[in-house]
């Protein structure tokens, strides 16, 4: 859709924004995962005391795992945003729906008109007879 037509500026930036979000999230997942793996490596002596180092690693992994999950959720949100964007901006399908509805309503109108016409004709015939009967009857 974006390639076929020239989109207005705001739409363009919005789409770019979606793209950026996608990339950012994927990158975040990737980076965090790599970092977790890196942290998992047992290192040689460091200057920091061991329990502190362990605690730091523990905490870091926590945070990074949570980051991965957040990125995943953000991707889901992106999916739903994209759906909404498509629904709201898919003008060809909206036009189709409108023309379809238009057609349906027109045929309904035609049908109603036809029915009304025939009803009117029938009633007119009956009315004539009824009028004749009514005005010549004793009970007016």
């Amino acid at each position, binding site marked *: 859709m974006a390639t076929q037509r020239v989109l207005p500026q705001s739409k363009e930036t919005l789409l770019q924004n979606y793209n950026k979000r996608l990339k950012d999230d994927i990158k975040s997942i990737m980076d965090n995962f790599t970092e977790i793996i890196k942290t998992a490596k047992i290192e040689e002596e460091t200057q920091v005391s061991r329990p502190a180092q362990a605690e730091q*690693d523990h905490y870091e992994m926590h945070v990074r795992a949570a980051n991965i999950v957040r990125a995943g959720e953000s991707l889901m949100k992106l999916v739903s945003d994209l759906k909404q964007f498509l629904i709201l901006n898919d003008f060809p399908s909206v036009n189709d729906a409108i023309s379809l509805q238009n057609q349906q309503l027109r045929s309904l109108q035609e049908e109603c008109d036809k029915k009304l016409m025939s009803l009117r004709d029938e009633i007119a015939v009956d009315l004539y007879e009824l*009028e004749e009967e009514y005005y010549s009857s004793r009970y007016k």
Partner: protein
Amino acid sequence: MSGGPAVRISIESSCEKQVQEVALDGTETYVPPLSMSQNLAKLAQRIDFSQGSDSEEDGAEGESRDREWSKQEPEEEEGAVKFQPSLWPWDSVRNNLRSALTEMCVLHDVLSVVKEKKYMALDPVSHDPSAVKTPQVFQLISKKKSLGTAAQILLKGAERLSKSVAENQENRRQRDFNSELLRLRSQWKLRKVGDKILGDLSYRSAGSLFPHHGTFEVIKNTDIHLDKKIPEDYCPLDVQIPSDLEGSAYIKVSIQKQAPDIGDLGTVNLFRRLQKNKSGTQPWHVKLEAAQNVLLCKEIFAQLSREAVQIKSQIPHIVVKNQIISQPFPGLQLSISLCHSTGDKKNSRSSPEKPKPDDHLYVLEHNLHQMMREFHKQQLSSVVMPHPATAPFGHKRMRLAGPLAYDKAEISSLQHNEGLLEKIIRQAKHIFLRSRTARTIDSLASRIEDPQIQAHWSNINDVYESSVKVLITSQGYEQICKSIQLQLNIGVKQIRVVHRDGRVITLSHQEQELQDFLLSQMSQHQVHAVQQLAKVMGWHVLSFSNHVGLGPVESIGNASAITVASPNGEFAISVRNGPESGCKVLVQFPRSQSKELPKSDVIQDSKWSHLRGPHKEVHWSKMEGRNFVYKMELLMAALTPCP
């Protein structure tokens, strides 16, 4: 040293560059070294050119300093003194050299200490193997643990994600929201503003000029807890409409008269109630349509009240709150009101329970809606249609107005655009006139049995014109007596009567005029009927007059009269019929048969017996027969001699 294992000795040199900052992780960033030119500039800055180069004091001081250092570095120092007497610009050089010397001294000391082994020997530190391994195990365990918790977090997150993707209620709801949104989108205008999805329910895109913004908001309604059972009418999508468009509204058009005999106008008794949701329509759709209806009603009413104020009529239209009152005919009041119930359950429930006589004019209400839409369409087409840039694409005559030099009156006559109110008043007038005509005819028909009136309403009408055919006949003699057929064209202010022979009479809206006219026609009909009957019976018409100039003066129309003679000419019947005075029938006997007539001495000849005799009035009410023509037939039959 060579015998034992290699020992690593760390001698850290003092840093050459200045530390710019120390990051949180301990790394140090240095100020980048100056380039050659920068260095030169920096050095040049230090030179104080204003001072004399051969200042004595300065030189002495400098030299004393020099001497202090010249013990260690005599060559360089002296070179410096030679070239630059002022030493301060060379301060940095000196500093660097001094630090280099310090480091060299330290290195020298360390090396000598190591080499001499007099004071200390360097041996590698003996590592306790158990002491080394435990921290690694500890590290391993701690890392494993932290990896485990990280994995748990990831798993939890993944579970949530897969839950929302997999086929379950939450997902169905999600998808439902999107599919509902899609359905909503296919029927209503939507756009996204920030985080909100806003819709438009106004008729602006259809050409409306009503300033109401008509915006509604789409709300995602997924707050229901997963475990709870979903109610039947649950919809994941909800809409929020502006508070002033809530509830239901309709335009009520009614005609009231001071006298209550107008109750037969629009007696349809329909309950206005919110329709129950049809299966298949979403609750939001019902809500939006109701809101749109409210909006349209408001627009119609706004338009009407604007026109009511603008239009100058003889009797000014009154606009009070939500009611417009106008007087189409004297003594008659057309009221158009906007009924808007705000959807309060208490109110809506209490009001429609009482089936009071409904005086809605549904046709007019419907027409109002239709006219508004036509107006919209007009607006739209006039705006959208491609037109020359110099002039609106309108009437051809309007374009000719310039070249043909129309004056103001002509142009305004072209531009005359009837407003909604004027149209509706005209329609109301027509409807009222029509129903009044029908009532007049019916009341006459039920009051007067002889002759009979038949009315046949035409089924093809216009909003401003309808027609009725009125036949005046005598019962049993419909085939013979077809003399009077009237076509009544009911317009807005008047009724045009087209006679069978082409005469056109225009009656005003006054009820009495039509009644009088019909009465006079009925009286004429009787005389016409006698004429027709005479033809059938073989009698001769001696004289016939629709408008007799003799006798008592009728208050309505004129009396008509006819005289017919029997086939052999012996008898004659004279009928005079007036709309008010009624009918008078006289029979003329032949002279021979009259006994009261004294025998004249003068006319004794038999030929005089053919002279007409005296008239005698028939006691018409005592005659047998169910109607006038039948009685007349009997009379004629009685007076016709048997062959």
